[in-house]
């Protein structure tokens, strides 16, 4: 596989995963009001 084709495939893969990541998740992001919490485990 040529250099150009390989890099193009990597870019396409990165873009597809980014788009797929948006499509696969339904998380509503919210920022913290506090800068510390109690531990969880």
């Amino acid at each position: 596989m040529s250099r150009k084709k390989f890099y193009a495939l990597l870019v396409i893969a990165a873009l597809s995963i980014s788009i797929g990541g948006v499509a696969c998740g339904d998380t509503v992001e919210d920022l913290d009001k506090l800068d510390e919490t109690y531990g969880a485990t």
Partner: protein
Amino acid sequence: MTKREPSPSRASSERAPLSYRARLAGVLALVAVVFLPLLRHGLVYDDGWTLRSNGFLRPGQFELALLFSPEAGARHVPDAFRPTLVSFDALSVRLLGVEPWAHHGLSILLHLSVCGLLARLLRRLGLDESSTLASVALFGLLAIHAEAIAVVSFREDLLAAALGLAAMLSAVRGIQAERARAALGWGVAAMGLQALACGAKLSAAPLPGILVVLAWLGPGPGCAALARGRARLLLIVGLLAVGVALAVAQTWIVHGGSPYGVDNPRVLAQRIGLAPVLAASTKIHVGYLQQILVPLGLSPEYVDRGAGWLEPATLLASASLIALLVAALVLRRRWPLASFAVLAWMLASVPTSNLIGLPNMRADRFMYLPSAPLCVALAVGLLALGRRLAAHPAIRSQLEFGLELGPDPERSRTRDDLHAWLPLAACVLMQGSFAVAEARVYVSNTTLWHEAARRAPESARAHALLGLEYSGAAQAGDHLDVEIAAKAEDACRVAQQLDPLYELPQLCLGSLAISRKDWAAAYEHHARAVELSVDRNDRPIAALAQLALDLPSAWLRHHPELGDRQHLSRSWLERGLGAYPYSPELHAAAARVHHRLGEGERAMQLYRRARSLRPDRWETVVGGVELALDLGDAAAAHRTWWAEAKLLERADPATRTRLTRRLAAARTAPGFSLLHSLLDPGVFPYEP
């Protein structure tokens, strides 16, 4: 004007096939780019406990020797039974501070290191280049790894995997070495790396067993040499086992047995017994397999619950696991790689299989290292499927028609090559997409616990921690947002109903009571939390020591056993400071108590200690400046106010306004000198 033709040498270099190293670098770059959005994430989950509020990691506090003595457990050093991790954290805090983006960047680098080491090991075992690259791509983007990569404090899994793979690589080189001296050198290196890996997390402990299975099944061309010299294999496996024993001995020295305590109620097996926990564990492991293959149902939180051995779901899960084991053993000669993958996954899952009690029965991060052999088998299988599909006449003609390619043999070879990768590419893209989606859950604590409560509605922890987030958000200075406070109370009450014997719902209700200035209720909830909890009591004790001074007289009259306010507050502080000498919040709270009691010198001493344990906490600096003003040292107060201007920008507006007014008033005093203030060393003269 004519278009410039590319020079023949440049054109041929562009057409020349890429080297293996360049393609590996490309795959690693893809993994890095996919996880790059993590750099905007905050510190979540246990990051506050292990990193930000862990005074032991700060310069001047960290002592390596302490991690090999029972004193580490007695002083409640976070994760004291993981000396490699604690040392790594101390080094990273010294180099990077506590900036979230820097630590997320470090986690991504660790993940890339694991991928790189996996590639090196696979090549050493004789796997071909294409299969190695495919395995690395799949492992690097596997969705179930999102939690381990996205949460800074879970880098213990990444560190253990990186060191464990390095130990395996050394062990394989030791077995393959021609000279005995070189073999011994590699073996000792493997032992050291294995001890360090298990010192990061005991999830690396089964690696010697996996090496034996590797030598037995010989799934790759390079594995044949592993089984040739049995004495050499035994020596290296023995050295790896010594590495594991060293790490176990450290845990034993520090905690005298289980790091979670022998009667920890957070370990479900302590409450309901081991049998129902193991029954549930069979279902959990079938669930892990499904999530590795099809990443549906991933979650930041799972509810710990037992199961009966005769329940249909348990029977089905147990039968599936046994069938898988039998199939792996029976088909070991026909499909050695698949057999190895199954057996290695089972062995690697042992440390987190709930045979030994853990505070979480299930977590996505537990599958970080165990998923590696499955990824290799899956990637090789998908490549084989792709080659078979590409060679199939019907599919081949359809693809040729679709792509409208000509008869050029070079293009035809490239096309065949690409077709062979299609099933793997589809799988990697799917896994990567789910990994990106899952990683977003960990952007902030509010998002994390909101999602956790949504996906695991029966989790008391998720509701309690969501309630704590709401409770903090409800208060802005002296103003209380009634609507958010009501949401906080709902979450706290749900958590309490789900688990009445859990400390977090009590802390949630206590925090809410503080927001509502109901000091008696806050004291009762925090006292109950300390009663229920076996560890991490520094913050509740800090709250109790301060609340004790504000308890209403009527309430105290009903509790004569508690004594007077000052005595009660001092007794909490004595207990807390003795048990948690590295807690910055507790030292700052103790300073405030002594400040209120008019013991300026002791208060200043404690503020300075709190500052050295966590320099990035503005509340401690504000306390020190106010104390200096109360002691009449306006010069020190001003010097610190100016020197810490950037840090104090994070203080809430009400606090900043109060301090500004007090400093302005101090400047009107007859003895105030601007020059004196500039030359003064300030409240915290000995910077850490």
